[in-house]
Every structure is written in structure tokens, then in C-alpha cells.
């Protein structure tokens, strides 16, 4: 029973808190640009507004277009169940490891890319092609990063990462690489831009262009959740915690505070990156992800040398 309630709690946590993180990043970005910006609750307002509206569906689409939002959100939630939040381990940690998590993400992406082609619009095709392009270049960089982390912990099981050795050079470089991967995966500047609707630059937004109403809300919620998962993963690697006694109130308080603080730090870093660099041309992304790949190699070498 405790397990099931933990699972439900974790799902509700991701659904409830993930949009807040996006709102916070937008707010931070606006403040850094000396603007007042919208409320950090804006993502919630957007979701509620979208859910309340009806959908317009293109006549050229098939059932692929209709099931995609459900596939995308359920793959994001399934991935969320593999990440430790409240306790060190996850209720379902024996279901899969870090590699399985990557494969689960690709399930959602696969369907989103198909749905984009399903509309028959050139925008959709463009988005689909670019998304698959970026993601296939992300894969090797991500794999090497996971490899460097694996070499330190001896397992790709995510719940193992917490019982860490003191922070090492390898895990710092690995976390930076993972951070850059997360930027590409959550469609942020400099790889993609969430704020634009200019066809020359958009990737993720181009894929979901034909979605409206509740379906769009589900896809947006999935994007928020995915971002939260990435931040939690990076946080766990770059800011490890020694064993904390979770049964005592002090320990629990410390753990919760540290969990929130480290995610906020990463959110701050993302907003700083977003306001300080320009979006790259699509083909510059090759260099960007090549750089991440090299970082992955360096992190692996450091892990092999045990520094």
C-alpha cells in the first residue's frame, strides 16, 4: 500500500509542480532582462485555459494524431516514476535504469514526430525532421555521459547515484554535459527556442503546431514534466548528498530543502544561459552536441583515472 501511495504521490507531485518550474524560469529570464514578466503561475493558467477549450483537428490526420498526446504524457509520467524525489530510491526502481529512461523518452518523441508528419503540413515535417536530427545527435553524447557516471557508481540504476562518493571532477564534467543535453532535450536556447513561432527557427513548436485545446495542454504538461526529470537527474549527480536520516524531522527537512535548492540552482543556470546566448543555426547544433560528446569523453577519462 505504501508503495502504491508513493507512486501516486510522485505522479501528483510531477503534475502539480513541474509547470511551476517552467513559470519560474520564465520569470527569472524576464527579470534578468529587466522586465517585470508574467506571474510564475502562468503555465497553470495556460493549461487550465487550454483544457477548457475545444479542439480543432485537421481532416488529414489519422488516429496517430489523436493518441499521440496520451502516449507523450504517459511516457513522461512513466519516466518520472524512475526518478527519486521524496526518498532516495524510487518506488519502481527495479523497472528500469537510466538507459531505460532514455528509451522511454524516445517513445514519446517518436510519436510526436509521427503526429507532426500526420498533419500533412510542411511545418510539421520540418519540426519532425529537425527533432529527430537533434535527438539522434544527442544520443551518443548522452550515452557517454551516462557511461562516465556509470563508471563511478558501478550501476546505471538511478537510485544508486545518491549514495555517492564525495563529488569528483568526473561528476562535475558529467553533470555539465548532462546540463547541455538537457538544454537540447527541453528545447531551450541555444538549440531551440520555446518562445518563437518563426518557422525558420522552431523545432518543438513546429511539431505541435496543429495541436489545440486539451491535446496541446497534455503535450505542454509532458514537456514541463520532462524538464523537471532532467533537472532532478542533474541535481542528483552534481550536488550529491551523503546519507541523511529521513526518519528524523531534521533530516527530512534538510533533504527537502536541499532537493528544492539544487533544482532552483539549475533553473537559475538555465535562465542565465537562455538570456545570455543567441539561438544557433540548426547545423551549428552539430558542433554544440559534438562539444557535449567531447565533454562526455573527458568525463569518462576522468572517471577511469578516478579523479
Amino acid at each position, binding site marked *: 500500500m505504501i508503495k502504491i501511495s508513493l507512486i501516486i504521490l510522485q505522479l501528483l507531485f510531477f503534475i502539480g509542480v513541474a509547470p511551476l518550474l517552467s513559470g519560474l524560469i520564465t520569470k527569472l529570464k524576464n527579470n534578468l532582462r529587466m522586465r517585470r514578466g508574467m506571474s510564475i503561475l502562468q503555465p497553470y493558467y495556460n493549461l487550465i485555459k487550454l*483544457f477548457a477549450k*475545444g*479542439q*480543432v*483537428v*485537421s*481532416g*488529414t490526420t*489519422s488516429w*496517430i494524431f489523436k493518441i499521440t498526446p*496520451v*502516449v507523450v504524457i*504517459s511516457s513522461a*509520467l512513466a519516466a518520472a516514476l524512475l526518478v527519486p524525489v521524496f526518498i532516495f530510491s524510487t518506488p*519502481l*526502481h*527495479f*523497472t*528500469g*535504469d537510466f*538507459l*531505460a529512461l532514455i*528509451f522511454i523518452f*524516445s*517513445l514519446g*518523441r*517518436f510519436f510526436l514526430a*509521427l503526429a507532426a*508528419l*500526420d*498533419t*500533412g*503540413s*510542411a511545418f510539421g*515535417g520540418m519540426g*519532425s*525532421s529537425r527533432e529527430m*536530427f537533434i*535527438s*539522434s*545527435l*544527442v*544520443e*551518443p553524447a548522452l*550515452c*557517454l555521459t551516462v*557511461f562516465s557516471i*556509470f*563508471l563511478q*557508481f*558501478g*550501476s*546505471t*540504476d538511478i537510485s544508486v547515484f545518491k549514495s555517492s562518493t564525495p563529488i569528483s571532477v568526473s561528476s562535475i564534467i558529467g553533470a555539465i554535459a548532462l546540463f547541455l543535453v538537457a538544454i537540447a532535450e527541453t528545447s531551450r536556447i541555444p538549440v531551440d527556442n520555446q518562445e518563437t513561432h518563426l518557422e525558420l527557427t522552431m523545432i518543438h513548436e513546429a511539431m505541435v503546431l*496543429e495541436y489545440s485545446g*486539451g491535446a496541446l495542454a497534455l503535450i505542454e504538461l509532458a514537456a514541463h514534466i520532462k524538464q523537471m526529470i532532467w533537472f532532478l537527474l542533474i541535481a542528483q549527480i552534481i550536488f550529491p548528498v551523503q546519507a541523511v536520516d529521513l526518519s528524523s524531522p531534521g533530516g527530512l527537512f534538510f533533504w527537502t530543502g536541499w532537493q528544492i535548492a539544487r533544482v532552483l540552482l539549475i533553473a537559475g543556470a538555465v535562465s542565465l544561459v537562455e538570456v545570455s546566448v543567441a539561438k544557433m543555426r540548426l*547545423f551549428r547544433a552539430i558542433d554544440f552536441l559534438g562539444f557535449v560528446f567531447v565533454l562526455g*569523453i573527458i568525463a*569518462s*577519462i576522468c572517471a577511469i583515472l578516478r579523479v
Partner: protein
Amino acid sequence: MESLNFTLLLDPLGLFFISVILLISLPSAVYSLGYLKGEYSSAKKALGWFLLVLFIASMTLVVSVSNALVFLIAWELMSLVSYFLVVFDTEHEKSIQAGTIYIVMTHLGSAFLMAALMIMYKYAHTFDFFAIKNACLLMPAQVKNIVFLLFLIGFGTKAGIVPLHVWLPYAHPQAPSHISSIMSGVMIKTAIYGLIRFVIFLLGVNSWWWGGLILVLALITCLVGVIYALMDRDLKRLLAYSSVENIGIILLGVGLSMLFIAKDMPYLAIFSLIAGLYHLVNHAIFKGLLFLCAGSVYKACGTRDIEKLGGLIKKMPQTAVYFLLGAMAISALPPLNGFVSEWLTLQAFFLGAFKLTGGLKLFLGICASLLALTGGLAAACFVKAFGIVFLALPRSNYASQAKEVSLSMRIGMFFLASLTVVFGLAATFIVGWLAKVAAAATGIDISRMSFALNNLTLSLKSVKNVYLSSPLLALILAGLGFTVFIVYRLLSKEKTLVDNTWDCGYYKIGPRNEYTSTAFSKPFRIAFSFFLLPYRKTQKIRESFYHVKSFAYETYTTPVFKKYIYKPLLTWVLGSARLMRRLQPGSIHLYLTYIFLALLLLIIFMPKF
């Protein structure tokens, strides 16, 4: 000369391959009932059935004989029968060309096999497998290396290791689709059988660079295969190139296993071979399925050109579902079978890197990341294949007139499609069976190794355990999907309107506005331009200086291997053949001299043999 020994060797390795052969051949045979209907005369159909049965029988023989000479005969029979099946559509010029390339390459491979087997015979003085196995223990290391390389080239030609893969994208698409399905699904796997049987089982791995060499070749094979698959616009050739890629993934498992055998790490050797064999049976299932689906598309539309298809999901709803399952499985999406085997292969690399020392650690890590790159590119390739062929609007009359195919064809596809799910969910059982196969092939005792936590969860012994449970993952995904769907239905009360795709307020958009396969692969063409060497030509056709009437665009990629390896080689062979012709001027006196010289040489060199 010893008498031919026809005893069969039905050890777990042979039985495993026999079951893979039957698993793919039977649904393909059922499929062919509908596929051949209306295409061929009854005499041709009878010939087709005869060849099909002979083909299946010869493959079964290849994996079950216990005598190297009989193996070679069965191998040749398999190659010849498959040649006749490739040229089955004799009226097509392309079939003849494909058949010629195939038969030349396959015999080139056989020549290397013969050489290797003759060296083995020299040591064992018999062709019996077990006698050879014993004799190989005494074989000097240098000779072993040579034999290994001969086997690698010989079987590599059949498997389609780059750069010996050239015949594959010609031959596989040109055969009738149920034959393509068997050739890609099963026949190229007999080469993997050969490598395991002759190199691991008989010869015995004695230095780690064998595995290392196979790993490097396999990685090149993976990447080249998938990049070409991504570029191709012929549906069946795309699948053939994707077979090249998957053979690479299988060989990664086999090569890794050889590396660990040489490094004396039994657990990892067994585990990597399990990963390779698992991917082998998975690839047989989903590539068999995809070729059958491509055959259905061809039968219904009359073209294999992706750019002319589109919107088939509405005309052929069942074929679309089967193709989608195959595409998802080959893109390693959970919880289907490709996901499990690719996860296992990645884990084999990771665990191996953890246990090995020094530079090999980094080597295996980079191998794993390149495998991940292959996976990402394969997903892109199959998004393209499914998306362009089945989704959106039909791009030509070929596609708009398509109808769903006949029942027997659907049964064949349904069977294989359900296997992609079964082999994904029953991972623990299959790994258990494959462990026995791997144990038989390597001769390692597995009684104290375990690969599963319980019936649902795979568990690997690393420093700390790693788990994967595909059934549980499927349950979670299905449960979440169902819940979201119900909640969503309850929450949203507004109606859904059906309208056109957004057309920028211009005019009603049609098939001409859709993204094409060539456009989809453009970013990849640019990213890999150093290898693909794309050629691009644009031309404006003007009515006057101010008015462009139409626009011509031409693009293709350079077939590097054909242009820079095979073309020069062929020119050289033909050139030297012309030189050799001078030996035969037609003079009887000269020929008598030749005979005399030959005799003399034989007398001189006889004692040396």
C-alpha cells in the same frame, strides 16, 4: 577420401537457429499465398514454392550438420537457391543485375570459407566438427589468426559487413517480398551462425583483438547501414540497408563476447552473446515483418518509391498497424522486443568497461555511444519510413487507389507483429533460454550464473545490480495511458471540430505541400556530407529575366563504396583478364608446352604437400 558423414548436430545452438528459421519462414510462406496470387502464372508459382521449400530446407541443413564438407555443400545450395529466388522476376533488368552481383559476391565469400576449411582439414585430417575442435587446440596461433580472418571475410560477405555489403541492397529488395523477408530475416543470420560455430565453438578464441576487430567492423557496419537507410527512398532498399545496420548490432554482441572469452570473463562472455543472439532473433522478427509490410504496400500500390506514397493508414489500416509495430520495435521503443535487446547490448558494453582496465574501458564506452547514435538515427529513419508512407495525404495515384491486402497476407504479418510484443514482454524467459544456447556455443558453465531476479525482472550482476522489467514497464505505460485518457475524457466537454491543416491563410494545401522523404533526410545529409558526398544542382528555368517559370532541383549522394572500391577493383579484374587472354592464342603447340610445364612443376613440388 573419407565418406561423407550425414549425422546431424542438434545442440542448443543449432536448435536455436532452426527455430529462428521456422519462426520467420512459416508466416512468410502463409503470406506468399496471397502475395503470389495474380502476379505469376501457375507454373511460375509452382516453381516459386519449390524454390521456397528448398531454400528453407537448405538453411536448416546449414545450421544442423556436423561435418564441415556437408556444411559447405549446404551453404552453396542455400546460396544458389537464393540466387534463383533473387532473379525470380526475370523480366526485370534489375533482377538480373542484382542476381549477378549477388552470386559473384557470395562465391567470393565461399572461396574464403573453403580456404579456411581446407586449413582446418590439414590439421584435423577429417571434416568432422568434433575432430576439428580437438585438432584446433593444437593449431599454432599464427594459423589460427589466418583461419579467423578467412572466416571473417567469408561469413562477413554473407552477413553484409561493410564494405562487403554491396550485394545486399541490390539482392534483398529485388526478390519477391516474402523471400526478402526470409533473406533479410534469416539467411544473413546463418553467417552469424557460421561465425559462432566455426570461430567460437570450433576454433576457439585465443586473442582479444579478434573481438576488437569485429567490434570496429560492426560499428562501421551499423553507422554506414543506418546512414544509407536514412537516405534511401526505395522502401525495400531502405529496409535492406537497415538489415546491414542490424547485423552490425548483432555482431557487436558476438564480438564483445569473443573479447570477453579471450580476457577470461565467462559471465560477461555469456551475457554479451545473449545480447547478440537476442537481437538476432528480434531482428529476424521485425525485419521479416517490415519486409512483408513493404510487400503489401508494393502489392497494393505498385510502387516502392516512398515519395509517391502517403496516407496509406486510411486505405490499409491493418498493414499500417503492423508496420508501426515493426518500426517501433526496430527503433528500440519500450516495451517491444528491440528495446530489450538494445538495452542488453548497451549494458554488455557498460559492464564490460567496468571490469576491463585501461584504454579498453574508453574504447567500449565510445562503442556504446556510437551504438546509441545508431539507435537515434534508426529511429529517425523509421519515423521517415512510416510517416511518409502511411501518414498525411497520398502523394500520387498509386497511393490513393490502394486497398487493404488479402487475408493470408494479413495473417502472416499479424503473427510476426504479435511476436514483437511477445519477445518484448517475455524477456526473462528468453534470456534464460539464450543463456543455454550461449553456454553450448562457448562451452562455459552457466549453472551458477543468473540473469533474472524473478519471472518479470532482468537483473545483471554488476558491482551493484541493474534491473529492467519490460512487462512492468508495459503495465505502467498502459495504465498511465488509460488513466490519462479517462481523466481527459471526463474533463474536456468541448466539442472537437474537424478542419483543414493550417495553410497560412493562403490556399487549401494539398499533397504537394507535404514534407518529402528527401526533405526529411536533408539535415542528416548535411551532417554526414563528409561521407555521403551529396551532389546538388538547382536550376531556374526563366520565361524572362523577371519571371521564373519553373525550378529544377536534383540531388543524390555518391555511393562511396561502389565508386571508390568496387569500380576500380572491377576495372582491374577486367584489365588483368584481358592480359590473361594472351596466354590463349589458339596454338596447340603452346598448349602442349603448358601441359608439360604443369607436369614438371607438379613433380618438383609434389613432395612439399
